């Protein structure tokens, strides 16, 4: 696996989980599959994006663990914000978050695909 290939992995994971989350929400599926997908998306993706975008790099296992911790913190901030703003709607927030993360991951993937010397590559130093 090339270094660019490794960089691509997290964007693919985020886009895949976010798309699944949105698709299952559109279908209105109440199954166990939806629960698993939404929980996986919420506890991995926001933190993974954050950890990658601020430029942290660890081993795969540590990456996942830090992503989970950061995701829980991000969810706490977003959920707390909506709760205190009297705008509590976890389903809508999750869907919006999924859409946002798809855009971030896609933008990151495009920047990465420009190759060495691009702005994104520069940030990975």
């Amino acid at each position, binding site marked *: 696996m090339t270094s660019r290939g490794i960089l691509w992995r997290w964007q693919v994971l985020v886009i895949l989980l976010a798309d699944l989350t949105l698709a299952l929400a559109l279908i209105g599926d109440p199954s166990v599959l939806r629960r698993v997908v939404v929980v996986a998306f919420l506890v991995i993706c926001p933190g993974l994006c954050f950890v990658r975008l601020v430029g942290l790099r660890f081993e795969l296992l540590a990456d996942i663990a830090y992503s989970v911790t950061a995701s829980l*913190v991000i969810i706490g901030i977003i959920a707390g914000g909506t709760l205190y703003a*009297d705008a509590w709607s976890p389903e809508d927030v999750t869907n919006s978050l999924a859409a946002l993360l798809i855009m971030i991951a896609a933008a990151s993937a495009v920047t990465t695909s420009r190759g060495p010397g691009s702005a994104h590559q520069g940030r990975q130093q």
Partner: protein
Amino acid sequence: MARETEAIVDTARGHALPAPGHEPTLRASNRLAGVGAGIGLAAAVGIWLLSLLSFGGDLRSMSDLGLVSVLPPGVFVGAGLLVGSFCLTLWRLPTKTPLLAAHVLALILMLFGTPAVLEEVPRFTVTWRHIGLAEMVARTGTVRPDLDVYGNWPGFFIILGFLSRAAGMPSLLGLAEWASVIFNALYLAPLLLLYRALAVNPRLIWLAVWIFYSANWIAQDYLAPQAFGYLLYLTSLGLLMHAYPGTARRWGREGYVAWRRWAAPIVLILVLVAASVPVHQLTPVQLTISLAAVAVVSRGVPRALPIFLACTIAAWAVFMATAYLDGHLTNVISDVGKVGASVEEGVQERVAGSEGHLFVVRMRLALSCFIGLLAVAGCVRLLARGGTAAIDRRLIALALAPAVLPAIQSYGGEVGLRAFFFALPALAYFAASLFQLPGSSTSSLRVMAATAAVLLVILAGFAFARYGNEKADFFTHDEVRAFEYFYDVASPTSVLAVADSNSSWRFKQYEQHEYVVANRIEGWDEAVQTGEWDGFLALLAAEIYRADASSYVIVTRSAQDAIELIGNKPGSVDAFEQALRSSDRFRIVLENRDALVATLRKRS
């Protein structure tokens, strides 16, 4: 030259790396050991799991010694095999992270997953309350600071409520059952990061991790804010150690290149430490103390970090926790400086109860002291080998910083336990430093056997210390059914009374009902002493009577066992139950093996 000096210091710290050519020799001569370790690991997990799945006993027959008294022998065989396999991997094989990680994950599963496999529903009365709080947040989209302390530090419940509502989870019971395993697994990455910043010998790191888990009897890793707070505590410290290896950084052209290396973790650390504030009362205070201690002994760490956290704590207390502090500020402040009272409350008052329970309490003290002694011995060994340069001052700071906590708060008598828990990562590292690990001529099979013996002793202590209260901590389906019945039939103004607070209650409709604990009502002690319950039942009836709704009293097995265990008037719940049965004020509406539900008869 500088590298040579570093190598000498590393060796003195017990971080000795294998001599050149040593690892290939190990690999060649110990292929059999590798196969043995793999088989040992698989067999250990297999035997543990099979013995739990085929468990035919009754948890109700548990003695005051706790879960140990009913565990099938296969659990102990599995744990013993795992220790043997881990030591074999550590001593006889080239360091292979996946195999060592697999051993530690198996250890986490065995130590913290046993109740989840064996018991019918989540353990700990507080877990049920936390589920109720998360359910309330998910359902209403509000927190209630006026109800109790939880509403003033609601971060964890907001996260749980958000997750459960967004995913459409009907209940958090499954998550609650496995929460200890999940949290301990999440602790692994920041622990590794913390230790890797201090040591270069992976064997020392994995041994420290093993000791951390097998000495973690404090049980603050269930579905609770402090478990999440501890994750933030470990992650912040791990990242801090990683970002600041202990040398001062200079700003300049070269510094700009390095900027991203330390700025990225700092952004994450700032977010993490700030996020810990709304989650739990005690954890951010300890994090502030630990960050300050590390900043004092380490030149590179920004001293503004603990100041930032202290300001955040103060801001939260002033703006968001006023509902709690309004009524409790005097209590909070009055504990400051009373170290003796905190220790007395934490130790002396806990050494009480039945003979079995006393043994468990002494085992907890003994295990904590044993880990402390191992850590001191490890320190002495490091000092003897390399002088003060062999000991990382940051680790000493992390080990000693929690000792400040008892001077600030008694925390309901729990502060000693919490301080031990916060110090455990550093204590485990020093304890691991005591053992002569492979890579030097003095390491031998005898040392390996001695280490295995010590690890077995710690595990034996863990079994008693961690699960010694299990008789009161576990609940059954029948008990939960009694509370489900109440929630099904109750009106919003219905009052629920329980014999003792050790009940699986408040997991629904948290904010809707008034809750009463019978053995805290004045008159209980007198009724227990005299055996005359009529007067007490009249008091209880007056307390829970509501003109517009039926109120209920629930008596459970776990309430009875909790009172028996701590020796607070044994038999009193049985007597209370008999009095309810024969009273003309109450009517039994549900009864099963482990619970009884009574309601007030309608007044004519």
